[in-house]
């Protein structure tokens, strides 16, 4: 079937094309400028393609740039972020699943109240907890460490992951749990063998949500980390804001792209499950 190219349709495509360019322009600027020498940018050619292609800014941002006291590049901070995000996401997802399981399949008196209180956590602004959290981390001996950051993100993430899993499991047939009970499975066996293997879609939703939020978090990273435990976002800020010497825009662009790549990667890999996951949760719930 072919649609005749009427005036209206041509202008529609034109408009859509314009929006595409509009939204892709920042990405273009970042990529193009991260691949050219600094003097090409400072001479006013920010929109032009590099005339002298180079990977030097990427190398510099990754391993040579002055971020903290030493010229380490962003590499150690990238590692910090990974070491923070992966356990935080895993722990939060698992605990959310466990909470959802208990709140839907092992109902007890006051469970809705508890769920309400957990939900309440979704609406607490980050800034409010900064000082009490700093005190708590201090008491736990976790201040300024990566495990401390993991702890903070787990606490903040549990509200969301519990919400996701509770709503997903609410639509999960309770008869399966009853059948497993009669088959002789206990609390954790049912969770591990019956519930978890059937939680794929919602787990993907949860992981994407948590990964993006935790990776991109700046406030907690800036507040609760030390020089050696700073996550990527804070390091990027330090790289860009450093007041010594010339502003190396090409290195900054390369660093910013590096900071954005992991979330982009997660979206591309899990993105199609993301949409599917949202659908499964909503249609049945």
């Amino acid at each position, binding site marked *: 079937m072919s649609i005749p190219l009427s005036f209206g349709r041509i202008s529609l495509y034109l408009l859509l094309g314009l929006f595409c360019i509009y939204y892709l322009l920042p990405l273009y600027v970042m990529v193009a400028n991260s691949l050219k020498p600094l003097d090409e940018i400072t001479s006013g050619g920010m929109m032009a393609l590099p005339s002298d292609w180079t990977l030097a800014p990427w190398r510099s941002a990754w391993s040579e740039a002055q971020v903290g006291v030493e010229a380490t590049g962003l590499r150690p901070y990238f590692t910090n972020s990974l070491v923070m995000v992966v356990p935080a996401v895993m722990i939060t997802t698992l605990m959310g699943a466990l909470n959802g399981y208990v709140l839907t399949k092992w109902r007890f008196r006051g469970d809705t109240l508890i769920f309400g209180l957990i939900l309440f956590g979704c609406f607490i602004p980050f800034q409010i907890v900064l000082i009490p959290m700093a005190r708590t981390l201090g008491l736990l001996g976790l201040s300024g460490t990566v495990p401390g950051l993991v702890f903070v993100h787990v606490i903040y993430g549990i509200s969301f992951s519990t919400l996701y899993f509770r709503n997903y499991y609410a639509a999960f047939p309770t008869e399966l749990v*009853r059948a*497993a009970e009669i088959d002789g499975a206990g609390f954790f066996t049912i969770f591990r063998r019956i519930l978890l293997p059937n939680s794929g879609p919602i787990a993907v939703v949860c992981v994407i949500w948590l990964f993006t939020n935790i990776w991109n978090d700046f406030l907690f990273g800036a507040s609760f980390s030390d020089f050696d435990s700073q996550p990527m976002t804070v390091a990027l800020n330090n790289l860009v804001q450093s007041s010594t010497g010339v502003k190396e825009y090409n290195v900054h662009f390369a660093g910013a792209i590096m900071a954005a790549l992991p979330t982009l990667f997660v979206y591309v890999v899990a993105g199609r499950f993301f949409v599917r996951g949202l659908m499964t949760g909503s249609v049945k719930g």
Partner: protein
Amino acid sequence: MGFLDIDNVTKSYGSVQVLNSTQIEVEEGEFLVLVGPSGCGKSTLLNMIAGLEKVSDGEIRINGTRVNEVRPADRNIAMVFQSYALYPNMTVRGNISFGMEMHGVPKPEREAKIAEVAELLQITHLLDRKPGQLSGGQRQRVAMGRALTRYPDVFLFDEPLSNLDAKLRVDMRTEIKKLHQKLGTTIVYVTHDQIEALTLSTRIAVMFGGDVQQLGTPQEIYDNPANMFVAGFMGSPAMNLLPARLLRQDGVMCAGLKLADGSEVLLPFPRAEGLDRYAGREIVLGIRPEAMTDPEGADRDSPALAQVDLPVDVVEPAGSDTFVTVSLGGRDAIGRFRAHTQARAGHPARFAFDMAKAVAFDPKTEARLA
């Protein structure tokens, strides 16, 4: 004392009592069907036997042992759920073996048992499929297979056939009956379908409003329903429940039924002989459609056959039978005629009432009088 004792068991949620004190003794090898409309407490009772719901009061004993506090897994029961409750992430093999695995049965023994059960239910070729790839009837078989892997004291079925289409339901019904005859295990089976109850059971408990209305063999329940609820619930088409007057005429007890034109037809009603105290009073006459038929189709051995000409309102051919509707006592009464009856709507037809099969109810208490 029976094999499965339900001893004065009640169930209440807060202040709402959903099952009133219930007493049923099930003998070993019996097939007990709990039947009733939704909300009658039958599934609650089954779940309490399974241990999935707590008993509010009373005691459940299996093989003489009190099981009120025993975990479902340790009661030695097996249950088939309405939705089959197959684990979607496991293959058929995994589903069948899960229970044995949980009970610590060693792998070679599990494999042997799976093969045996699969053979019995003809699902050997399905063992490596996931439940999502099976049809409704196949899922049903797998669900039964899962229950069969252990040698349970009691099988519990929770409306196992209600998700199947009509034809498959009849087939599976026969299979379940065969299975019971082969294994001889005690079965408690919940359904809202009175045909399933009549065909499968050795005994039926008809439930309504949290009470067992009647407990008896299918024949007892069908022929002598304890009250008007049981009479109306069991049998299809339902028993005709017709307002009538009891009177003694020429020394014979009769039921008088009003016709549409205001006249009254008198049917001799020998079963009511002992009911002199009700003479002259209103009763409800219960008569099954097959006891109200054409003279040629009537049971000639019946001791109390009464023939009357009545004006026919509606004639409904149904293949094997023809249902003929007349107005009796102000209600539509359905008679079951032979397929090639001459009865035509708007014309009188001759009815043969088998009054030996008719029963009488008290219109106020709804209990059976005779």
